[in-house]
């Protein structure tokens, strides 16, 4: 009889009727899990640099545990070697000694408190490891493709055996800390996958050679971990369903499926289907990859093994996993980034509150932060990693109710509005547009997935309605209106002021604004110069190039898209090349002529570019209305692009911070 840890009855949850397959139990090994939801292990860099768990880490996990409504909740992968070669992140949790057990137990207890199943993950980062030491380790010393990673030291036969034992020892510590289910992470180019891949394993001992040989260490790890876990604690493994390493002669998809079968034979109780390596040249989880793009791989996995198959990878909405589980093509829905962005995401699905979900926009800032040794941050969720700071995560009601005028219904204004209103202020949001959403009305029309940015506005709209925010759309706020209303506080969320081209010809009728272009209000010729090389300019340039226009970007920044985080920026560079866009960085427009523009580089070199239209995307801070508010002695805040033109993330974070401060 399978063991049930916590009783859950979803009969009263509306979401369980809409998505019945997500809320039915599943047996994994000898453990009965009440639903099909799993918070997948997520490194957060919130632990001490010595590997000990912190309050920040515990509270981060507590919220995710509440979110899975009784399902699986995995803590981040722990490293297991005292030499710290397997440590991939400065704030990764450690488990190479019993001294770490009490801290790990705190996380486990927090998960249990939410009546969720606590998952422990073993993760030696292999080629991607050694953040604090000089050499990482691997089956063979294959040079690193990316300079950010440390050189690889080949493990001796004895090293391999020690590493296998370290997995078993760490698993034992996890069980002692109280965890209910164990997972071995063979994801994205970490040690397990290094052993399996023909790209990185060139060994000639029993841990190399053909696929069976390359799987030998994995088999021994599974068996060793199973021995210490016993029959009550199931053991699963995350393995690549496709390495996406054809360019460097990695495993074929057929070989990957063979690894699944070998893992099952070795005793794995489930497989988590992963995809790609950090070294792969193909994108896997960024916004340009459509949601559900990879789900067919779970179906293929199920054709090869009979144990449960779990999968994540751009499954941000419940419909598809529900459908695929119903069709027998998937067993459990794994969620990572959607629960970074909204820790209670599946709970809201269960409660029928899907419109209240703050959706991940697949920007990969969270990952980029980890690689820069910074604590986890989310682009769209200001509370992420601050869950332990009560005054920030759950701000108190305002001591004194104020009448707050927010000028601008873009993401900054809306975020501020619902936070302030939910704390008891009387909030009035004005926008000269007839619709909410600000610049995102135009930004969402850019290609490669930017329509997903709009989910932020959908969420904020619902939250504003819930908090009782008053809207005055189609109303431009003027100095007179401020003087008439005389609110207690004014928040200027008016967005940026678009730059004027000061050069000769700056009044040419060739010049149009990018917002008019993005909303098809401006007439644009066949050859275009985009003025401004940040993301808005790039998005608009791609939008025009997709219509067959020849676009040249001219911008003052030293590198195009410097405002896009590095984990995503490389995609835009490729798309610009593919769409024939020429980019001149570190340049300005020196003149606008009848034929086009004259570009001037930083060193004074000038050259002409023919064009029919010049689109202005360059922006500066917005100074309007400030003086009046200040001269009336009204409390003033400036947020979002009006303060300094940046991006959606800064707009949301600014809005939240001021919303809890008013």
């Amino acid at each position: 009889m399978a063991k049930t840890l916590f009783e859950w009855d979803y009969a009263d949850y509306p979401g369980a009727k809409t998505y019945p397959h997500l809320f039915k139990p599943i047996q994994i090994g000898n453990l009965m899990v009440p639903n099909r939801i799993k918070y997948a292990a997520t490194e957060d860099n919130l632990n001490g640099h010595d590997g000990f768990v912190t309050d920040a880490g515990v509270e981060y996990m507590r919220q995710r545990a509440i979110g899975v409504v009784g399902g699986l909740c995995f803590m981040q992968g722990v490293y297991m070697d005292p030499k710290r070669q397997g440590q991939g992140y400065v704030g990764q949790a450690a488990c190479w000694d019993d001294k770490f057990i009490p801290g790990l137990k705190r996380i486990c207890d927090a998960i249990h408190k939410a009546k969720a199943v606590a998952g422990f993950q073993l993760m030696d980062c292999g080629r991607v490891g050694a953040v604090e030491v000089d050499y990482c380790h691997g089956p063979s010393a294959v040079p690193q493709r990316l300079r950010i990673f440390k050189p690889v030291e080949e493990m001796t036969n004895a090293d391999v055996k020690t590493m296998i034992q370290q997995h078993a020892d760490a698993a034992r510590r996890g069980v002692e800390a109280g965890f209910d289910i164990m997972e071995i992470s063979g994801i994205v180019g970490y040690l397990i996958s290094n052993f399996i891949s023909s790209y990185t394993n060139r060994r000639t001992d029993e841990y190399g050679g053909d696929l069976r040989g390359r799987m030998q260490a994995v088999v021994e790890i599974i068996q060793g971990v199973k021995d210490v876990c016993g029959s009550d604690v199931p053991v699963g493994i995350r393995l690549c369903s496709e390495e996406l390493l054809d360019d460097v002669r990695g495993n074929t998809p057929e070989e990957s499926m063979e690894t699944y079968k070998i893992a099952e034979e070795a005793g794995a109780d489930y497989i988590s289907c992963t995809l790609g390596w950090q070294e792969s040249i193909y994108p896997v989880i960024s916004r340009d990859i459509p949601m559900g793009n990879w789900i067919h791989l779970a179906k293929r996995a199920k054709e090869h093994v009979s144990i449960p198959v779990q999968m994540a990878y751009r499954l941000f909405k419940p419909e598809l996993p529900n459908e695929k589980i119903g069709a027998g093509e998937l067993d459990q829905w794994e969620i990572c980034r959607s629960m970074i962005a909204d820790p209670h995401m599946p709970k809201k699905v269960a409660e029928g509150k899907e419109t209240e979900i703050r959706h991940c926009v697949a920007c990969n800032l969270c990952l980029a932060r980890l690689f820069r040794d910074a604590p986890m941050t989310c682009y769209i969720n200001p509370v992420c990693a601050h869950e332990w700071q009560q005054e920030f995560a759950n701000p108190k009601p305002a001591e004194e109710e104020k009448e707050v005028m927010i000028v601008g219904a873009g993401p900054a204004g809306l975020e501020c509005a619902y936070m302030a209103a939910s704390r008891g202020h009387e909030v009035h949001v004005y926008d000269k547009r007839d619709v909410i959403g600000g610049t995102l009305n135009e930004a969402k029309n850019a290609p490669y997935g930017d329509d997903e940015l709009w989910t932020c506005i959908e969420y904020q709209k619902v939250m504003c309605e819930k908090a009782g925010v008053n809207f005055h759309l189609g109303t431009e706020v003027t100095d007179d209106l401020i003087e008439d209303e005389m609110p207690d506080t004014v928040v200027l969320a008016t967005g940026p002021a678009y730059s004027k081209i000061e050069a000769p010809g700056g009044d040419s009728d060739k010049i149009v604004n990018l917002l008019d272009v993005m909303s098809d209000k401006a007439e644009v010729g066949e050859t275009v110069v985009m003025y401004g090389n940040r993301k808005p300019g790039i998005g608009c340039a791609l939008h025009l190039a997709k219509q067959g226009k020849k676009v040249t970007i001219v911008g003052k920044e030293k590198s195009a898209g410097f405002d896009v985080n590095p984990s995503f920026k490389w995609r835009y560079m490729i798309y610009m090349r593919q769409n024939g866009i020429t980019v001149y960085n570190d340049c300005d427009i020196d003149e606008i002529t009848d034929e086009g523009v004259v570009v001037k580089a930083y060193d004074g070199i000038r050259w002409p570019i023919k064009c029919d239209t010049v689109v202005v995307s360059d922006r500066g801070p917005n100074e309007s209305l400030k003086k009046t508010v200040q001269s009336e002695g009204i409390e003033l805040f400036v947020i979002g692009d009006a303060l300094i033109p940046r991006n959606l993330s800064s707009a949301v974070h600014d809005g939240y911070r001021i919303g809890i401060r008013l």
Partner: protein
Amino acid sequence: MLVDTEKEITKMHRMLYSTRNEIGKTYYRWRQVAVELAGDNVKPLDVSLRAAEVFGKDIGKSFLPRMNWLKGEEGFLMILAKSLAGLWNTEGGLATIEKGEKPGEIKIKCLRDPWPTWAKEYGAPMEEVAVCRERMYQTILEDVSAFMNVPLKIELQKAIARGEGETVMTLSKVE
């Protein structure tokens, strides 16, 4: 104000030449420092060869992200040879690639090489130029070979020390 295209191109051209010239000379200035610090017991050629190894190691690393097996062995060797020739061209050489006589062999030919001129100016031995390039390329190949699991070699076939005529190297797989 219209752009005087000829004037702008001349300006750019001059800048490109002087930049290359300065980079070449900087190498020899540093070589001088290294030779002096190394002392009388170390041959200047050994210093230069060591520099070629250090350069090669770093350049080899920068090649790895571009290495690609999707077009098979021949395609891979062509990309690699192009990158090696491209390096020479960036420095002011005139290098091309072509298929060699034997299967799987690619020739890198350089008709014009600015290094011997600088070498002469700084009193560095002539013969080291081609030898150092061979050593640098060999070191580049070390990481590329290990990365792709394909042993590769480069051999100097013909070297014209004064930078006129033709320098020829062959790139191939170690059988």
